[in-house]
């Protein structure tokens, strides 16, 4: 791609999930200071030594069957959870579209929730004020915007959440299966928006099951299985390999 600084560099990222089942209260305190008996806990590696580099402006897909560690990887990149081993560097501001409307409050109106969610996603109130009309337009629910979101249909809810998320200022978009929201018409709109971001040189990291999206939209892809990298490279090739395995 280019010789510029990459948007994301990840080296040997690993994530060990520990189950607490066998931990008792009296074992908790020693575990805090790092002296806990780690052997007695149930654990599994959700991610094992995954390395990759995503260039600025690149559209990058992460594919794999359920439970392959895709979402875990995205969560690590978003800073929601911490890797057990390895390291990564992110250059630029991230917009995480992990789950839409996570910060929505049912009793607050659509408008109030736009402000709240936008600030949670890292914008300031002033920034939000400037773009609130665009957000409302994009969500197509202007007539309901001053009603509590608990009265919204699930489609309206997701549309509003998506509209807020994509209107934040960002350099890197982390999206987890979000292209599957709303009806067909809205999905087309979302895809068009993604194309627009791509054209504007934004970096997009997409977690998906849909190999069609991968082939059409992304330049490169990473294929994960049981937390391990199976292949990483040209989107077409990686998607083909994935389809082959799934068949």
């Amino acid at each position, binding site marked *: 791609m280019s010789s510029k600084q990459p948007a994301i560099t990840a080296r040997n990222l690993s994530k060990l*999930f*520990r189950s*607490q089942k066998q931990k008792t*209260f009296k074992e*908790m305190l020693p575990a*805090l200071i790092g002296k806990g008996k780690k052997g007695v806990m149930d654990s599994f590696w959700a991610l094992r030594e995954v390395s990759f580099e995503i260039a600025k402006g690149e559209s990058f897909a992460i594919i794999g069957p359920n439970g392959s560690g895709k979402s875990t990887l995205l*969560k690590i990149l*978003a*800073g*929601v*959870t*911490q890797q057990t081993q390895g390291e990564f560097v992110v250059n630029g501001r991230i917009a*995480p579209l*992990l*789950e839409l409307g*996570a*910060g929505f*409050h049912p*009793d*607050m109106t659509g408008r109030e929730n736009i*402000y*709240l969610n936008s*600030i*949670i*996603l*890292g*914008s*300031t*109130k002033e920034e939000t004020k400037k773009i609130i009309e665009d957000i409302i337009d994009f969500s197509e629910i202007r007539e309901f915007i001053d009603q509590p979101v608990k009265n919204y249909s699930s489609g309206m809810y997701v549309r509003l959440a998506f509209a807020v998320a994509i209107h934040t200022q960002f350099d890197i978009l982390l999206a987890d299966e979000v292209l599957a929201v709303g009806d067909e018409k809205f999905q087309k709109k979302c895809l068009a928006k993604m194309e627009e971001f791509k054209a504007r040189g934004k970096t997009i990291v997409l977690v998906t099951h849909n190999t069609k999206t991968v082939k059409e939209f992304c330049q490169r892809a990473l294929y994960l299985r049981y937390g391990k990298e199976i292949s990483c490279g040209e989107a077409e090739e990686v998607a083909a390999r994935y389809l082959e395995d799934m068949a």
Partner: protein
Amino acid sequence: MSILTAFTLKQNRQLLWELTLREIRQRYKQSVLGYFWVILSPALQMVVMSFVFSFVFKLADVGVPYSIFLFSGLLPWTLFSTSLQAATGSLVSNAGLIRKIYFPREILVLSNILAKNIDFFLSTTVFIAMMFIFRIPVTFHVFWVIPILLIQNLLTYGIGLMLSAFNLFYRDIQYLINLILLLWMYLTPIMYSVSIFPEKYRWIFRFNPMAIFVNAYREVVLSGGWPNFTSLGLALFLSLVLLGVGFKIFKKLEGQFADVV
């Protein structure tokens, strides 16, 4: 990650404020009296307890009308206990946010404490009215309330950080804290004055920061005197140590929050 990041970054400040507002808004939705409950419930509690302790048990003379004596201790105690309970549950009740988006998690703990402080200010209106009704003389010493309240909040924040993090791993904490708060309340001179407490056990109050705060509030508001600076200094020291330790534990565990919530 500094302990002050929640305040120094504009964006964090706004997030703190928005989450506080959300906390307040959601509480009394769909109730007829709405936010008026915040004022009503401590006032009613005060009336009932005044009746029990001044007519039924006939406590020794405390220098001012008993109801106002009681209320002056009950209000800051209610602030402490409700904010500590809310802080302890703050991470668990915001599981949805923690799993999806990163922001400094201590903002969740802080916003819960801040919301209870707003409740506290509203419920003091009844107290202020009572001060006028009973014609209690007020001096400039009343402004000492501000630093005392600040130290009290430091203490709450420090303990709240620890408990909220532990509560994610062991939900027992939120039940345990209710019990501890109940015992703690009886070991704090809220319903009684220090003078009726057996002398040989009074040392308890010297190491109970809430007792130090309650005594200090009463001294500056009801008696118009100086607070006891030695005790207050000790309470400040203890609060800062707990805050330092609490923050350190909180940040050490923060990376695992999303996995265990």
